């Protein structure tokens, strides 16, 4: 009498494991990459990833197939990060966008043919752009990571950040302008921008 229910449980568990391996595990690297950029260190990223997958496994039955496994895992990671990590490490992260905008307006070129708009003129050392991105305030950094590094759609980002799509668009637009200002400053400070006009 006992053998039958036990075998049912084992079979359920096996099915759960198989499903989890098939649907969740393939997203490990993408979630780790995100965790690394958000927490800023490999040890914290590893811990956040482990906790995310622990929760995902636990709540596997609640996976909403309509939003898809990847978006669901990102949502769990966001909640884990905000509930455990973010509260304890939250810095002001406030940014005066008006100041950035003024700086942007003063730095932006007057024509689309300007050399500072050409990608081939930037000589960025490895990891430098990653560092520059990490200096962005959280709300702006997150949309850059999700869109420009991980390639998520505006819909997915809106779901993840829990804001309307218009806000995603606006934050991305402003985040890239902030990055442009910082890139240009970095390039000027370190002589990493080729100005063809100054070359003999």
């Amino acid at each position: 009498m006992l053998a039958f229910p036990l075998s049912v449980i084992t079979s359920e568990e096996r099915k759960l494991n198989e499903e989890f391996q098939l649907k969740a595990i393939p997203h490990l690297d993408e979630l780790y990459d995100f965790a690394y950029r958000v927490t800023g260190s490999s040890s914290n990223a590893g811990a956040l990833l482990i906790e995310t997958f622990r929760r995902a496994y636990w709540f596997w039955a609640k996976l909403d197939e309509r939003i898809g496994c990847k978006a669901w895992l990102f949502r769990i990671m966001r909640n884990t990060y905000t509930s455990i990590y973010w509260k304890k490490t939250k810095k002001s992260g406030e940014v005066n966008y008006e100041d950035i905008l003024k700086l942007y307006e003063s730095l932006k070129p007057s024509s689309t043919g300007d050399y500072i708009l050409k990608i081939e003129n930037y000589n960025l050392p490895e990891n430098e752009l990653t560092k520059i991105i990490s200096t962005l305030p959280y709300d702006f950094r997150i949309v850059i990571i999700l869109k420009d590094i991980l390639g998520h759609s505006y819909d997915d980002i809106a779901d993840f950040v829990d804001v309307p799509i218009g806000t995603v668009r606006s934050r991305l637009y402003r985040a890239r302008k902030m990055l442009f200002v910082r890139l240009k400053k970095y390039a000027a400070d370190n002589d990493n921008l080729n100005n063809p006009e100054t070359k003999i």
Partner: protein
Amino acid sequence: MTEIKKDYTAAFVDEEIKDDLIKEVKQKIETENDFAIDYKVQLLVKNLIKENVIKYETPNKVRKKILKRTNSGLDVYKKSNKPRSYIFEKPAFAFATALVIVFAIALILMNRVGFVEEKDFDMEQTGENNLFVQAQNNFNMIIQGKLDLQIKTSDTKEVLKFFQDKVINYSTIIPDIPQMILSGAFISEENGERFAHLVYAGKNNELAYLYQVDESYLYDSQIITLTNDFIKYLDEMNCYSKVTENHVTLLTKIESNICAIVSNGNSDTIENYFCSQ
């Protein structure tokens, strides 16, 4: 009619504009200089990120840990696929079930991954015999030129022979640290026991220093020390790193050696390398 604001240039770059607006946004970019420049800036930044940003892969240790947990039939977090309400359908079991749930929640809280708490490990490491303290002191002495290499070579075989000749009583590891070249090695002596130290240098004179001891020295807790919870943390194949303004200090277990690495080089490179072993 939708007003086309400049932030639509971002959506245009990302191909995230609805069909009925594409023409209007494109026309704005083609006819208005401000829109055209914003579009170019958005495109430039997006492409720079695409070309320059390297993707991080899950370290093997973390991957193994997750796979192990999700494969294990003994995991305390394992749950039934049945909805929660089914559990309470049998009143006779309701109280016992509630107790089990309370117990499970207590277990979860106790076992939560402490990625904030781990930051305090370094605060607890004190005393002149402490591995963490010794590693940082030695590194400071190296960069001040107060601690000399006893063998200067980038040849790993020569260094291994040096350790053997100097009677290091445990197997030593000489990793290839990215963007660094082995400069040489030295040994230290504590209560008659000898320990292996390696020094690496990068192109821009940045240094990496590796101090390794067999884990058994830490368990004896006499000659070289670390706090018990720190040893347990490392023994569970976790990697601990502390990044300050000037350098990164990282502790990890490689094979049976507990390794302390201190470097004023790129902390990301050091962390990625040692934490994915």
